[in-house]
């Protein structure tokens, strides 16, 4: 699904963010923050933030307008859309989706070999205002919201402001933050986050090895292990819930069981450990020879790690795996990879009886996959 489009615009001289109104709204205050979504022309567009037209409109009214948005015909009431002065239309939030996230920044202080969202060295600190505005427009009934990047904590005070804003505006929305945790090396930063007392916040933090230099190599940042480990301790001390995330590839598999022991012994407080298959996005392609291991070849290690963590009473999930390559004893831990992108299946999957429970593939993952893909009967 495309979330962006280039539109023909008029009357837009700065980025305008608003809620989508497919259904007309009466309240003038709501109109002022809403994009009126029409097919071609609308009878009543007075007082709206602007108009989003799926087709082209010939006679342009004197109101911000973006038209020719056929690609975005899924837009519906409550969605949030930004239109840039250059005609770039971005869908920031879809009310019907369970997987909304705020991409805080494209910058990152790590450069993980398998990064699915490669960072950019740009100054985008000015995006905070847009994020805060977005939080105000999101439906407070939203169940969960992701905070991601890049590395969102690079915004430092801005990051805290964003979390606080979510707490105030979306108190019943679960927040899941993806961060490398390194910035929480600074105890005060962890203390400030804890002091916000967000009622439903989890930080998903990657940990790739129990050995410092191995973790540092995977994230391509010297000292990262030290920073993340101390960060985890500081976060726990200040009552912030943590999920650990381990991406499985050729560099992390050899010590996976040791890492599981290390986690159980040192971080028994984490609420969840996610063992994740390699996603074929971003930098993975560039480093594929170094990273690739057929999942069918690491099931013993995966089983051992899951067992160690489970024995110690920790909650474990396995993500991004096709069921036919996962050891059957691990099926109860396998979560269907869920996203708004449509998952695909291979010709080999034809006739498989487990397709309903299986995550299948991301489209980009079709190129390189396990030799063991086979229909289950």
């Amino acid at each position, binding site marked *: 699904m495309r979330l962006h489009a280039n539109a023909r615009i008029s009357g837009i001289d700065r980025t305008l963010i608003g809620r989508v109104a497919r259904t007309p709204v009466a309240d003038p205050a709501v109109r002022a923050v809403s994009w009126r979504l029409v097919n071609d022309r609308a009878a009543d567009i007075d007082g709206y933030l602007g108009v989003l037209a799926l087709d082209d409109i010939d006679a342009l009214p004197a109101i911000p307008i973006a038209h020719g948005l056929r690609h975005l015909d899924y837009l519906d009431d409550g969605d949030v859309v930004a239109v840039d002065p250059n005609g770039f239309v971005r869908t920031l939030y879809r009310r019907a989706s369970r997987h909304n996230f705020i991409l805080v920044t494209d910058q990152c202080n790590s450069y993980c070999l398998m990064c699915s969202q490669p960072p950019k060295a740009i100054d985008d600190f000015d995006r905070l205002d847009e994020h805060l505005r977005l939080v105000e427009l999101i439906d407070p009934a939203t169940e969960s919201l992701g905070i991601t990047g890049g590395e969102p904590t690079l915004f430092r005070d801005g990051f805290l402001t964003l979390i606080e804003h979510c707490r105030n505006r979306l108190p019943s929305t679960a927040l899941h933050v993806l961060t490398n945790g390194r910035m929480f090396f600074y105890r005060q930063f962890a203390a400030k986050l804890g002091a916000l007392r967000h009622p439903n916040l989890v930080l998903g933090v990657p940990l790739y090895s*129990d*050995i*410092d230099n191995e973790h540092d190599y995977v994230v391509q940042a010297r000292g990262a*292990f*030290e920073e993340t*480990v*101390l960060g985890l*301790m500081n976060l726990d001390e200040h009552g912030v819930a943590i999920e650990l995330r381990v991406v499985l590839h050729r560099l992390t598999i050899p*010590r996976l069981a*040791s890492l599981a*022991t*290390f986690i159980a*012994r*040192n971080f*028994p407080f984490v609420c969840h450990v996610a063992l994740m298959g390699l996603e074929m996005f971003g930098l993975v392609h560039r480093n594929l020879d170094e990273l690739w291991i057929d999942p069918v070849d690491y099931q013993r290690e995966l*089983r051992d790690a*899951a*067992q160690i963590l*489970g*024995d*110690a*009473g920790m909650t*474990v999930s396995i993500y991004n795996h096709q069921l036919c390559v996962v050891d059957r*004893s*691990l*099926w*109860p*831990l396998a979560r269907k990879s869920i996203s708004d992108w449509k998952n695909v299946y291979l010709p080999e999957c034809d006739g498989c009886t487990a397709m309903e429970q299986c995550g299948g593939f991301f489209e980009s993952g079709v190129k390189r996959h396990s030799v063991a893909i086979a229909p289950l009967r």
Partner: protein
Amino acid sequence: MLLVNETGEHLFTSRADLVALVGHELPKDSPLFADLKAKHFVFDSHSLAPFELLVAKYRTRKSFLDGFTRLNIFVVSLRCEHSCHYCQVSRVSSDRVRYDMSEETARRALALVFRSPAPELKIEFQGGEPLLNFERIQQIVLEAEVRAQSSGRRVEFVVTTNLALLDDVMLEFFRAHGVILSTSLDGPADIHDANRPRPGNDSHARVVSNLARARAVLGRDAIGALTTITRIALDRPIDVVDEYVRLGFTSIFLRPLSPYGFALRSARTTGYSTRDFLDFYVRALDYLIELNAAGTFLVESYAQLLLTRMLTPFPTGYVDLQSPAGAGVGAVVYNYDGDVYASDEARMLAEMGDTRFRLGNVHRDDYSSIFGGEPLRSITAASVIESTPGCADCAFQTWCGADPVFHYATQGDIVPHIPSSAFHEKHVFLFKHLLSLYEHDPRARRVFWSWVRNEPLAEVA
């Protein structure tokens, strides 16, 4: 070779690798070096993280010290209608004035309990048979609840009882106040009744019927049981365990006879060697592992304690296995006559005429003279196993603890002579045995973890 570090993590190496390590000749890129580093046996940089992790784990393990006198034992009556051969202290008597705790004694003891800084308190009623002085239990529970409420603390109550005298009024009171029960069950009827004579010789039958009544009122998990192993049980581990299965218990605590009181005097008829007990224990443990692996959840409590100390970073509250010793620090006993002891064993010694471990008396002494006085200081100082000869060098040190009262009773000195100590013999054997099962028997490993979690074996990983 077994290596164990200050926070209880363990690792096996060959002797050659250990010699290489100690000689700084183990290659830093070897898998063993990585394992040693990950478990914080070695450091190879000035990084703060491994040290901070060690400190956090060390502090967690020793956090039992923060809960100064969490367990408070009240001996509300020394009287008992049983006359068990191994019983240390009780009296068959109807002299309530002489052997029951008075209202005033209870009130003064309670005042001391609430001087403790511990945020959570446990009050355990023992005897004799505490139900013989039920009105004192009622008084203490009610007053403790008021004090706990006003000081914002949590208090738990346990009554250690043979269940024989349990009636509906008592049960209703226990239900209303969340009191849990701990009873004695030594195995099937023939063993139990031989160990625990009472008028009518119906101890086992009373336990079984009152257990069912108590469970109906208090809930299934509100009644635990302890097993004292006597000589007649030694060759019947399966029968003893099966009785616990039959009665639906989820834990069994296999305890050897203690070397105190009447137990010592009757050693000739009921006693046996440490080795005999361990043989029994191994057979019982094997059977328990088999049962658990097949789906019957029944935890052996002492193995659970040792395994928690071996396999997890968490502290354990058991007062008999800490360093410094839990006596007086983790637990304190208020005797029926107002005397205060550092442990239950200490008051048993006193019943034998040796008051060495009496910390004071609630009628004559105040908090600081009882808990800051010479008896408690000397026990605590003598029980730091990190500096005890024989313990200081022991690989099992971080998993083990001190028992100065036991050593005083058996060896005549609160500082043990480790090479001849029965405590040492028992614990070294148990650590080795549990570790060997854990390392070599995947089925036992899974059962052990389920005991550590105190949950039945999961169906899947």
